[in-house]
């Protein structure tokens, strides 16, 4: 089946099998390997991308054809013009990662979380990231990173993403 999915602003038209999962479309058809798969069953959140700038989706349990005609944001599309996105900067600054395998999914969930909850409480951050699992960090620095990103993004001059 022919699909056209706009990933990070670039349209990708590819012929895929109906069963092709969005995660593998991104990784193998677009070569964007920052989207990881950790569990295959939408439990861990390593594969999260943002659909149409609004919704965090688990790409390991979504078919590529379901994203046909839609826009997808992955970790590779976060930085604009060489500068890190405030969320990326915050995860790096606050040491919100160890092995880093879960980090892309954490950050993309954060994009959607802060879109809908620009000034989250700590409890809202923890609840908002409940679908993303990390085996290394113990999450506390991830929560700090989301707090920093929220603070920066609320500044009037912040990036428009």
């Amino acid at each position, binding site marked *: 089946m022919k699909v056209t999915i706009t990933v990070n602003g670039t349209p990708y038209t590819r012929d895929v*099998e109906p*069963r*092709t999962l969005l995660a*593998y479309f991104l*990784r*193998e058809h677009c*070569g*964007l*390997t*920052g*989207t*990881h*798969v*950790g*569990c*295959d*069953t939408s*439990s*861990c959140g*390593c594969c999260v991308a943002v659909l149409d700038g609004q919704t965090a989706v688990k790409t390991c349990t979504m078919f590529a054809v379901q994203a046909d005609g839609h826009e997808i944001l*992955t*970790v*590779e599309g*976060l*930085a604009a013009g060489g500068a*890190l996105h405030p969320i*990326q*900067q915050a*995860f*790096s*600054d606050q*040491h919100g*990662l*160890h*092995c*880093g*395998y*879960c*980090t*892309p999914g954490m*950050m993309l969930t954060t994009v959607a979380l802060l879109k809908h909850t620009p000034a989250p409480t700590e*409890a809202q*951050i*923890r*609840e908002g*990231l*409940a*679908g*993303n*699992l*990390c*085996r*290394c*960090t*113990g*999450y*506390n*620095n*991830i*929560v700090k990173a989301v707090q920093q990103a929220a603070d920066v993004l609320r500044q009037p001059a912040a990036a428009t993403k």
Partner: protein
Amino acid sequence: MAEARQVPEVAAPAVAQGNAAYAWPTHPTYMGTDVQRIDGPDKVTGRAKYSYDIQRPNMLYGRIVRSPHPRARVVAIDLTMARQAPGVKAALAVVEPNAILMFQGEEVAAVAAATEEQARDAARLVKVQYEVLPPLTSVEQAMSPDAPKVFPDGNVREGAAEETGDLAAGFKAAAHVVEQTYNTQVQTHVSLETHGCVCEWDGDKLTAWVSTQAVHGTREGFAQALKIPQANVRVITQYMGGGFGSKFAPDAQGIICANLAKQAGAPVHLMLDRKEEHLATGNRPSAYAKIRAGVSADGMLTAFDAQTWGTGGAGVGAGFPLPYIYQFPNRRRQHKDVYINAGGARAMRAPGHPQGCFITEVLMDELADLVKLDPVDFRMKNLPPDAPDARWRAYFPIAAKLFGWDKRHPTGDATPGPIKHGFGCSANRWGGGGRGSHAHCEILPDGGVIMRCGTQDIGTGTRTLVSIVTAETLGLPIDAVNTEIGDSLYPFSGGSGGSTTAASVTPAIRVTAVKALDALKAKVAPKLGVPPADLVASDGRLHARNDRAKGMTWKEACRTLGAEPIAVDGEWQPGLSASGTSGVQMAEVEVDTETGVSKVTRLVCVQDCGLIVDKLTAESQVIGGVLFGVNYALFEDRILDRNTGQMVNPNMEWYLIGGPSDVPEITAHLVDQPERGVIGLGEPPAVATAAAIANAIANATGVRLRSLPMTPDKVLAALEQQRAGGTR
């Protein structure tokens, strides 16, 4: 029978003996401070390539056909249909007919095809005929006298009894005796990046991008299994998504991947899925202990008599230290390894210690209650003598103060309402320490610095530590150092296990950087008219020790090299690292006695690790380790169907690990011990948590849980038993 593979414990002294030539700086710029991770930017942009992310031209995808049965004989394997399936370029049988398969998930055959989906399709077309044999599915079944003899040397391997002192006299001196059985579950590693690799042949040379904790060990493993020279193998691990002790070798899937790539004449990507990960890549063995222990009226431990057992699966041992830390003058222990038809154990974050700690520390609280002593006071009376690697006497009071232990109520929260609060404590120890690690340093005429070491960063921050020590030694900014690790072409370094990486790698980097700097000083000294021994490097300058102006910038100094860079090799030397850590944890829980749900609200961890190299990564390691322990205490459990022996939760939906809301408020109090040198911290913080939580739950509810994980059903059952007037 195979033992759980792990890095052997290091026999190193507890105190660094001093090494004047390479001594750690007494007034460091970076060491011991909060230094940002140098790989942060690569990891937040997706530029960091994990083995899973490697894509090579014409790369194929491999899949393994695994036994669906915990025990079976292979009658026949037919690859014909699979070979004819679309996209298939290689297919092979891993075992011969008549092979006996001993666990669900054991490797039987494999295929490689152009796409992941085609490989999965083809794997389903491999026809395997099995004669299903009755499995051993639990330790109870395997130990029963009428169990079938499944393992050639018996289902149970009984170790020699360990006995010290006079047990009868010990029990005679006891005013109180506890007789109970304790147990811990099987836990799997759940690294978010699964095991696997990409293998590519160039003639008879193999390059393998492997998710491994040991690039050199994995090179050796490939060479041995494939019967090729080690020189023909290159193993690369630039980034990896965790290992926790389960990734030290190519494993079956690595060898299969290399063989598929050879057969297909193309690179093969073979990463396991989550189910395979749970079934076949290792676990922490279960532990059981039937204990009789005595305490005197004045609160001194008198006797300890234990029968212990546990299973590491099919043919792997299940040892653990017991009793843990505390001194029972008269003791006996008889241990049995029990084999069942399940995936074999591997080293897992402080192998054996969380088991031994949980069992001993819960017992300690039971004994303290009998003599009506505060758990901390009781422990203080029974600790071994103070030593550099045994500092609990100092740490219990520190933790108590930080935690507010004096507000602890006696066992059983007497306040009304269903939510009960409680405090618990426990202690831990671990080895750590360093050994032979090598490095190579180049100082380039344009001022560039390259430090190469064949270690690997499993996620803890090793790459950053290498940069910190190099920059510290050369007086340069951290980002002036090009750290290159994760490649078996670089100088040898051991596996990242046993909390030995920091103590192995950082001394090697220190020695190598000092040697490189000495070589540069020798070049520059005549030009400055200062003896080399009087030159120091700081703030990007090489200058006379007592006259900063008398010197030149780092770049100017390097320019004097002309066309020939400095290139020196160095290796680990004694005197910069030591072995042995101790720590104490205290936990507060709230237990809902109507639902049985326990929540850890607060945890204090007092932990030493020798000289702290990067405070930021060290503290973060503690927080992560504590959550590892919370998971072990409350959530994680590999559950086998008692009839079929099949794992019923081989996923991350029903095999639970904690999420962001399950983390307590954590106070990480690191004790810096610069005089001991570097030791290591990966494992220690994960040891004591479950025991502290167990004791806190008992303090809250008045009922004692002696079995991990402490799930709501067990809490409710214990409360029900108490209401029914049962034993406590």
